[in-house]
């Protein structure tokens, strides 16, 4: 009943999962250093400089600090929920990457075996990604509630309202992409854009750029990043939902936020920028597709950092107005236009 081919398949899936998880776990280390360097250079200062050349080992120093820091649990906090909240934040953002395609099939050297550079090609991929990324809100809600602190609770409440509102917006953007690609599978969505940058969804004029604009704003709000970082607005809330957290638990929240940033960047690339597709199309000169994917994701991560250190923060009512009174009506009109164009 159990044959070798099946066992080999299972082992390959395990290896893929482990590799993706390890890459995602190590990425925040690099990203924190890059983010602080970007911040430094945008604000005309040096950024971290002490540990290693150009402060490149700063992230490891921070990690050691986080590991040895005392783990404080506030008095009268809900201890169980307080402990699992960081995990509830982390698990969904890792689960997103099950569906994200990093590249097409490649043939392994020295063997005939074909390897797909994605863990799973679900036929409901895009809804899966949206659904799972929506679960990250529980980490914020439970973290805020379990801390037994009014700042944390306010941060959690704000955050849940914000994330739910912008999830609607993001779903609309996904609807637009599905209408353009005629498929819910992320692999099919990338394949429908192949053949050079003029085939990408972002250049499907006139609706493509609008969809991307809507998606990008919603992504910023989902990530709780400036200009929509109201849940951790230090001016009014001290630090928002994770104000009571310290040590490794705080590090888990940070890890979750960075991996979420990577996931939104990857999603933007997959949905609008052709995924692993070579921008030069027929004139390509042999750069492996997966490197294109990584490069595009890195550009997006840089854009997120750039925005963070450039723009001021919105007020909370402005945030809600933008979501419900601007983006959703635009999306509805855009669905109509896209529908007419696809007839």
């Amino acid at each position, binding site marked *: *009943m159990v044959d070798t081919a099946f066992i080999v398949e299972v082992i390959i899936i395990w290896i893929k999962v482990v590799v993706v998880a390890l890459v995602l776990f190590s990425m925040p280390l690099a990203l924190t250093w890059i983010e602080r360097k970007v911040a430094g250079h945008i604000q005309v200062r040096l950024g971290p400089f002490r540990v290693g050349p150009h402060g490149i080992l700063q992230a490891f120093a921070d990690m050691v600090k986080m590991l040895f820091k005392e783990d404080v649990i506030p008095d009268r906090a*809900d201890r*169980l*929920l307080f402990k699992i909240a960081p995990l509830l934040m982390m698990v969904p953002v890792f689960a997103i990457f099950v569906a994200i395609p990093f590249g097409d099939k490649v043939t392994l050297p020295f063997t005939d075996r074909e390897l797909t550079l994605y863990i799973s090609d*679900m*036929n*409901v991929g895009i*809804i*899966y990604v*949206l*659904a*799972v990324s*929506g*679960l990250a*809100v*529980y980490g914020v*809600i*439970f973290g805020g*509630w379990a801390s037994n602190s009014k700042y944390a*609770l306010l941060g*959690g*409440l704000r955050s*849940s*309202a914000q994330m*739910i509102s912008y*999830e609607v917006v993001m779903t609309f953007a996904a609807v637009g992409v599905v209408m353009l690609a005629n498929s*819910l599978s992320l692999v099919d969505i990338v394949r429908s854009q192949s053949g050079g940058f003029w085939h990408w969804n972002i250049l499907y004029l006139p609706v493509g750029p609008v969809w991307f604009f809507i998606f990008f704003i919603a992504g910023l709000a989902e990530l709780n990043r400036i200009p929509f970082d109201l849940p951790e607005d230090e001016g009014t809330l001290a630090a928002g939902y994770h104000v009571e957290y310290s040590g490794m638990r705080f590090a888990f929240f940070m890890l979750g936020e960075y991996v979420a940033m990577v996931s939104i960047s990857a999603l933007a690339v997959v949905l609008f920028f052709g995924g692993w597709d070579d921008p030069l199309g027929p004139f390509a000169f042999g750069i492996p597709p997966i490197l294109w994917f990584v490069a595009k994701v890195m550009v997006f991560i840089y854009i997120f950092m750039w925005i963070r250190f450039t723009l001021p923060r919105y007020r909370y009512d402005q945030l809600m107005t933008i979501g419900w009174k601007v983006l959703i009506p635009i999306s509805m009109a855009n669905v109509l236009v896209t529908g007419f164009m696809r007839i």
Partner: protein
Amino acid sequence: MAEKFFFLMFAVVAVGSALAVISLKNPVHSALSLIACLLQVAAIFVLLRSPFLAVVQVFIYVGAVMVLFLFVVLVLNIKKAQLETFPKGRRWFAYAIVPVVGIEFLAVIFGKSFTATGYEAAVEEVKVATLGRALFTEYLFPFEVVSILLLAAMVGAIIMAKKRWD
């Protein structure tokens, strides 16, 4: 074989968390258990080769409905909600009647009618396109009715939760 193992795993967790929902005192803990239970039900849907419904379950139930529940629990005064005590003896009716009805239903399920042949599992996953086509042709009228219902519920919820009548 593997499928039976997975089914039992999901089912045991689902039943355990469902029991936790009705027995925990704090509504926030109940909500967390219900989230766990709903995720198990989504996994059961995957075993039933209905990936679309599984994802919709996670999206709408876990991602929206339960957040709404928690939001309300958080906004309202949680301390008062915790004060509930379990009534003793007064609810004997529930404890008595529910197991009787349950056993009766179990007898029906494991009786002749459902274990008989003729219930062969489909092999293929249901394609989302098939589902969508059925929804927008054969079931168009119910679909429209449900959308009106959603609109009515939205208006109703906003009016009910409004602070003042102006």
